[in-house]
């Protein structure tokens, strides 16, 4: 899967619609992150944000395989997951700007966006911190007898955290419907993953009896195919699975990480953008492989930019929470 061969098969109508929508969603994520970066540069956004530009295909490919009631847990680099699961840019921008209209009333911010309505149990600012939550959500699905599945997104750096192995062991023992999606974008902060990870990444879930599907994280169709397989297993209650998605982040670790030459080369960055861009790869397939009119995609690009621009406006115009909000929601 993820082999260019697929490019020669012409997809059915319904399929094509799905793939077109996938492109639109990736375009929205791309435009969203560009705007976040602008808000930071123009000092309109409080704090920092971790952009997922370059990793759009993972969020979209995985979430395409999920239903609205399925759960996800996300990370500090979670805007893409949030959008792919169905959140709308306007309330997300409001949250990033600390406004009352945000998904979390401005109390969470970029690293804590949650949207239960779309099954998003929240981004997490503790690396690996949501592995227990995602696994617990799968336990609920199993115990309450519905067919939901739960997806745990995390970066390869989270493989340093023991919690992952503790919950993978239990998920495997209990055949929980959880899928551990590792986004290996090569770096954790300012360090190449090979400097902090011994042995093999895929051997880790496997050691606990969890099958691993390794995929090209820049190819949304490859990610989707693997996700479909993993989600199917989980829904049939055949147990957890893990996805190892090889991808790359275009920007720095966070918006303030500008001079990166001491940990990765400009050439490397350019190579990924030129040769492995998920939007470009998918666009090429839609046009060359599926014979789609490029205008359709240009239109989607425009719509994405427009929706995001409107979202930024909404967020900037929205009021801050009232001071009385400060000690509300501490207890339910």
């Amino acid at each position, binding site marked *: 899967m993820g082999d260019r061969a697929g490019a020669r098969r012409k997809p059915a109508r319904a399929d094509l619609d799905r793939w077109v929508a996938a492109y639109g969603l990736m375009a929205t994520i791309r435009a969203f992150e560009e705007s976040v970066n602008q808000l930071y540069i123009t000092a309109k956004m409080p704090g920092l944000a971790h952009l997922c530009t370059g990793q759009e295909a993972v969020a979209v490919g995985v979430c395409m395989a999920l239903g609205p009631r399925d*759960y996800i*847990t996300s990370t500090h680099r979670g805007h893409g997951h949030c959008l792919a699961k169905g959140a709308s840019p306007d309330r997300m921008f409001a949250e990033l700007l600390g406004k009352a209209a*945000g*998904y*979390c*009333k*401005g*109390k*969470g911010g970029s690293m*804590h966006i*949650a*949207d*239960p309505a779309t099954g998003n*149990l*929240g981004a*997490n600012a*503790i690396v690996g*911190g*949501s*592995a*227990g*939550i*995602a*696994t*617990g*959500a*799968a*336990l*609920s*699905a199993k*115990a*309450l007898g519905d067919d939901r599945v*739960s997806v745990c997104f995390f970066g390869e750096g989270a493989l340093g955290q*023991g*919690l992952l192995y*503790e*919950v993978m*062991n*239990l998920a495997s*023992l209990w055949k929980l419907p959880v899928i551990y999606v590792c986004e290996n974008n090569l770096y954790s902060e300012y360090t190449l993953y090979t400097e902090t990870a011994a042995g093999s990444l895929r051997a880790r879930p496997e050691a606990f009896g969890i099958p691993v599907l390794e995929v090209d994280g820049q190819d949304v169709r490859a990610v989707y195919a693997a996700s479909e397989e993993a989600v199917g297993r989980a829904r049939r209650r055949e147990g957890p699975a893990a996805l190892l998605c090889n991808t790359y982040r275009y920007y720095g670790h966070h918006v303030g990480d500008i001079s990166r030459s001491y940990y990765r080369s400009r050439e490397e960055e350019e190579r990924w953008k030129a040769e492995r861009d998920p939007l470009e790869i998918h666009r090429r397939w839609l046009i060359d492989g599926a014979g789609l009119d490029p205008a359709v995609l240009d239109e989607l690009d425009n719509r994405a930019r427009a929706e995001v621009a409107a979202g930024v406006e909404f967020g900037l115009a929205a009021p801050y929470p009232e001071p009385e909000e400060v000690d*509300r*929601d*501490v*207890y*339910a």
Partner: protein
Amino acid sequence: MSTPSPVAATSSGKATREITFAQAVREALAEEMRRDPRVIILGEDVAEAGTPFKVLSGLVEEFGQDRVIDTSISEAGFTGIAVGAAMTGLRPVADIMFGDFLTLAMDQIVNQAAKVHYMSGGRLRVPLVVRATMGATRRSAAQHSQSLHAWFAHIPGLKVAMPSTPYDAKGLLKAAIRDDNPVLFFEDKLMFQARGPVPSEEYTIPFGVAEIKREGADISLVATSSMVQVALDAASILEREGISAEVIDPRTIAPLDRGTLVESARKTGRAIVLDEGHEQHGVTAEIASVIGEGAFYYLDAPVTRMGAMDVPVPFSPALEDLTVPTGERVAAKARALCGRA
């Protein structure tokens, strides 16, 4: 529920039995599990073994392995799973065999469970109970004897219950399970076999309501969990000497019933605060400063603190017994405060 208990009639006329603290905890869990299928138990050796303290024996037989779930030795892991389960429709009770092991689950409790509701702007809830033991003088040494409840009372978003009798244990645990917030529930290991009256009727005890365990006029002894009995012992000793001590049990330290504590100190003009956690930066400090501020103009003597000695709990019985307040030592301090030393 297992061992049947003598049924007596109390003043209230209602049916009341004498049962142990362990039975009270078990009854609370069983009743809530019958009442609400979403209540589950997770922990190490909680099923067939019923925990090393046998507190849970009988539960897996009644509720099955899908609701009384044995885990690997993974405090962070199963607590994290409990947090996620609580966010998505279950009401888990996580069992931390020895409170000392809470050190392994701090991130899941403090950075996740305690903050999810607030960080999500109130959209997510974590109806989770973490049961943990506490208490020394069991010859279990430094890693199996700590009382770390002060840590959790420091963290907004968490509630902390510290029952001192079978009655309080049952009523507070039932309330904790029905609470939509994460609750740390501390049980003194040495109290498990202590017996006390517990009504047959269903009841719960609200959080944040202290109870006066004994009325008095000369000095207030504020005590939590294992220290309540120590305070009562001291009160009887003092009574013989003509000193009337009032014993107050906050029952939950978060929320803390400041009003009742302050009121008692205003009445008596003197207070000793007892808690089995370490004294330095512990619960005795919070309560002493609350009383010191609230009863400032009524105090005849400085509020005095008596926590566990600030040393890791030693194994040797010859040393361990020196680290925890006793009725005699409390009485001596009280005497001094009342100018009878």
